[in-house]
Structure formats: C-alpha cells, structure tokens
C-alpha cells in the first residue's frame, strides 16, 4: 500500500511538471494554431534565470528564496516568449508551418547559446533543505519536492482558470480558441490575446523549468527535451486548447508512466505511446477537445 501511494504521488508530481509545459503549448496551439517547438527553450531560459536568482540569494536557499527564483524564472521566460512572439511569430501571421519551423530555429539557437555559455553538463540547482526530507502521506514517505510540484501546478491551474473565466482577455482567449474569425468579426483585435497567451505559456514553462531542474538534479540546456515531447503528447491526449484537458491528461500520463516503470523498467514511455495511439484511433480530438468545424 505504501509503495502504491508513493508511486501514485510521484506520478502526479511528474504529471504536474508535464502540465506546466503542456498548458501553454495547448493554449498557444488552440488560439493561434502554432506548434511551438520553442516552448522547451522557454523552460530552459526559466531554469537558468531561476538558477541565477537562487545562487545570488545566499549560501543557504530558503523556501522564500526558492519561490522567488521560480517567480523570476517564470517572468523571464514569459518575457522571452513575448519577445519571440513579437519578433518572429506575428510576422508569419497564419503561416502555420513556417511558424512551427521558426520555433524550431529558436530552440536550436537558444540551445547553442546556453550550451556555449554553460556547457551541457548538469549544474547543481540550490534547493531548500526541506526538499530533501520526506513527508508522511497515508503511511507512505513521500519526498517533499513532489509536494512542491503538485502544489505549484494546482496553483497555476487555478490562476489560469480564474484568468480565463473572470477577465475580458480570458473571455477573448476562450472565444478565440473556438473561432478566431468570429472574435474579429465582433470588432476585437484577437492578436492582442496572442501576446497574453505567449506570456502566460512562457511563464508556466519557466516555473516548470525551475522545478524540472530540481527533479533532474540540476540545470542544463538539455533538460527540456523529454518534457517538450511529453508536453506535446499531453496536449494531443487532453485535447488542443483545453487547459483542464491538459491537466487531466498530464496527471493520467504521469501516474500511468510511473506505475508501468515500477513493474517493468522502461515500459512507461512505451505505454504512453500506446495510450496516444489508442486515443487517436478512438477519440482523435482528445479527451476534452472539441471537434473542429
């Protein structure tokens, strides 16, 4: 039973990391039709800026320091995402393939610059000592960092939901995901919403970058790789443009992957791909996705 809880919670923690990447990917795709390969770069930029903040803040990282590192890392990644959107994406308005290609280029350039500066080896990310302790959950000893991942993801999910539900820009984003032309036809410049979505997606990915650095035992330009791919899978399974769908799919995939890996090492990734193929065959629009007109 203890092992069961441990694997389950670790799986949810991993799912939380996937969600931080996937939520932005899903909204960016849903609203703008952009397949954003630069999303991994947003994660890496957030991780390195977070690392810089955490190392500046003192020999011993406190919980406050860490939260500050997450926020600053997220903001930096959000601003970087905004810059990419303004500088490159908007100039290729509605040329979806070219937009995807340009983001591939961005990910290469960012990887090269960070690799040139810091090398590609893992650099220790300073964390609060509390992360190394274990928390008793229903008799199972859960590593404390998992709790942080889950809490952050839930917090961002709620913030995201509130923004989409209660603000005008959120209303525009939700309507735009469904039918962009009609939003324009109501006299609203839908492109204003694009920047918001890029910033928010970048912010979530940047926060995710700091957490991924903790989970991977360090920061490097290469940490984003598998999270970006899992992010894509989560988006497809959850349904394009649906943030709750991404959350559901991320948790599902995190848990399934951990359990499969527990029984047979390496089986997890395989099971996830089978799941993906199954969803595509049975429900191509994803769990909470809508059929596009």
């Amino acid at each position, binding site marked *: 039973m203890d092992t069961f809880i441990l694997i389950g919670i670790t799986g949810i923690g991993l799912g939380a990391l996937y969600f931080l990447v996937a939520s932005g990917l899903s909204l960016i795709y849903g609203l703008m039709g952009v397949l954003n390969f630069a999303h991994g770069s947003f994660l890496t930029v957030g991780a390195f800026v977070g690392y810089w903040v955490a190392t500046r803040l003192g020999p011993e990282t406190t919980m406050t320091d860490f939260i500050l590192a997450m926020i600053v890392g997220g903001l930096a990644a959000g601003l970087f995402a905004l810059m990419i959107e303004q500088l490159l994406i908007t100039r290729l308005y509605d040329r979806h393939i070219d937009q995807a290609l340009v983001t591939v280029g961005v990910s290469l350039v960012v990887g090269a610059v960070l690799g040139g500066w810091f090398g590609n080896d893992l650099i220790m990310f300073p964390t609060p000592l509390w992360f190394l302790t274990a928390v008793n959950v229903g008799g199972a000893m859960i590593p404390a960092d998992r709790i942080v991942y889950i809490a952050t993801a839930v917090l961002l999910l709620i913030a995201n939901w509130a923004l989409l539900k209660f603000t005008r820009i959120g*209303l525009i984003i*939700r309507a735009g995901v469904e039918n962009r032309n*009609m939003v*324009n*036809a*109501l*006299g*609203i410049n839908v492109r204003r919403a694009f920047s918001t979505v890029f910033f928010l997606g970048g912010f979530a990915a940047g926060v995710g970058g700091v957490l991924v650095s903790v989970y991977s035992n360090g920061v490097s330009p290469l940490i984003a790789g598998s999270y970006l791919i899992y992010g894509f899978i989560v988006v497809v399974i959850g349904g394009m443009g649906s943030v709750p769908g991404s959350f559901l799919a991320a948790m599902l995939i995190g848990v399934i992957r951990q359990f499969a890996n527990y029984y047979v090492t390496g089986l997890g990734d395989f099971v996830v791909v089978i799941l993906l193929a199954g969803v595509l065959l049975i429900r191509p629009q994803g769990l909470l996705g809508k059929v596009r007109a």
Partner: protein
Amino acid sequence: MNALSVKDLHVKINESHILHGVSFEVPTNKVTALLGRNGVGKSTTLRTIMGFYEGTGSIELNGKQIIGMPTHKIVQSGVAFVPEDREVFASLTVKENLSLAARSKDSAAAYKFVYDLFPELDTRAAQQAGSLSGGQQQMVAIARALLNKNEILLVDEPTKGLAPKLVTEVAEALTKVAEQSTMLLVEQNLALVKRVAQHVIVMDQGRVVYQGGPENLNDDSWVHQMLGVSGGHK
C-alpha cells in the same frame, strides 16, 4: 443617401475568380435584400465586406473606404455581422457571448433592447450557447450584432435550417430591427424578403444582374427567371 457603396469588387479565392466586378448601393435606413441562386457569390460578397477575403475595387461605408482594412477595424467603424450558420461560441454561456460582443462601456440600453427583443436570452443567460436550439443560437447571433451602435447590419441567411415556427419568430425580430437600422440581408425565404425588403439586388455568377425596388418579387415569372425558384407562396 447610401450607407454602403460597393464598386467593381473582384475577389479570387484559391485562384478561382468568385466575384467579377460587383457594384451596388445599400441605402441608409432601409433593408436591402441580396438575392440569387446558391453559389453566385452572395456570402462571399458579405464576407469580403467584412474583410475575411481580399478583394480589389472599392467598398465605402458612409463615404469612407474600408476595403483592405483588418476585420476588427471594419467592425469598429460600424459594420455588424450575423454570419450564416450563426457561429456562436458554443463553450461560452449566452451572457458571455453577449458581453464579448458589447464593446462600449455603457451598454445598458443596448442590453435592454436586446432582451426586449429576445426575452429568452435573459432567462437562459447562464446556459452554454452550444446547448441552445438552432433558433435560440440565431437569437444570440443577432443579439451580438445589436449590442453596439452600427452603421449597417450584414445578415447572412438568418432562417436557414430553422423550423417554420422559429422562422416566424426570427422574421418578427428582424422586422423590428429593420425599423431602426440599415440592413443588407441575404435570404432564401422570399416571404420574409417581401415582408422586410425595400430594395433588392440580384446576383448571378459573381455579378449583379438587377438592382431596384422589391415590386418585381410579386411577378412569378420574373422571380423564376432571376432566382430559379417558383414564387414565394410557400
């Protein structure tokens, strides 16, 4: 006085020439019906006025050139659009659909007008628009267009696919709206057209072939020749 004046409008979509020099006027404070067989370019004309398609020629709104402007700017300068197939935001509530459309800060009067016209929208404010019936969705689509001050209303086949009882309801609403606005209406239901239109334009194969008063609509042979349908006595 003309609210909208279209001159020599040409439109190509994916290399195929859809509109071949369309010219017509929409007089202010009147309802103008845009008629023609299926596929002659009526919807394309409306959607080009809206800026969805690129075209060459001239489209003037109260003397101001709007061709080539982005859609949201065209709408802000006073063109409202009720699209074919309604295109309500299915996952948004009725209220959210309306508040998205209402651009001015002070829209209480506009809301009152809309709710008087369609009381159902008030009672169903919290319902998801996707779960409404076709007729109710059409009300949302029309209401969205009425929440702002408009120079002209473009309405594309508002009764398409509706049950006869709902057709009457939508027709009554449109008649009320017509009393105080300029409208360019694409509609297959000739009975409705006869009831509201004061001006008629007929298109064929991407060109305007008739422009004038509605009196010919009572001439069955004219209607048959122009529109390929037999009269409006359904």
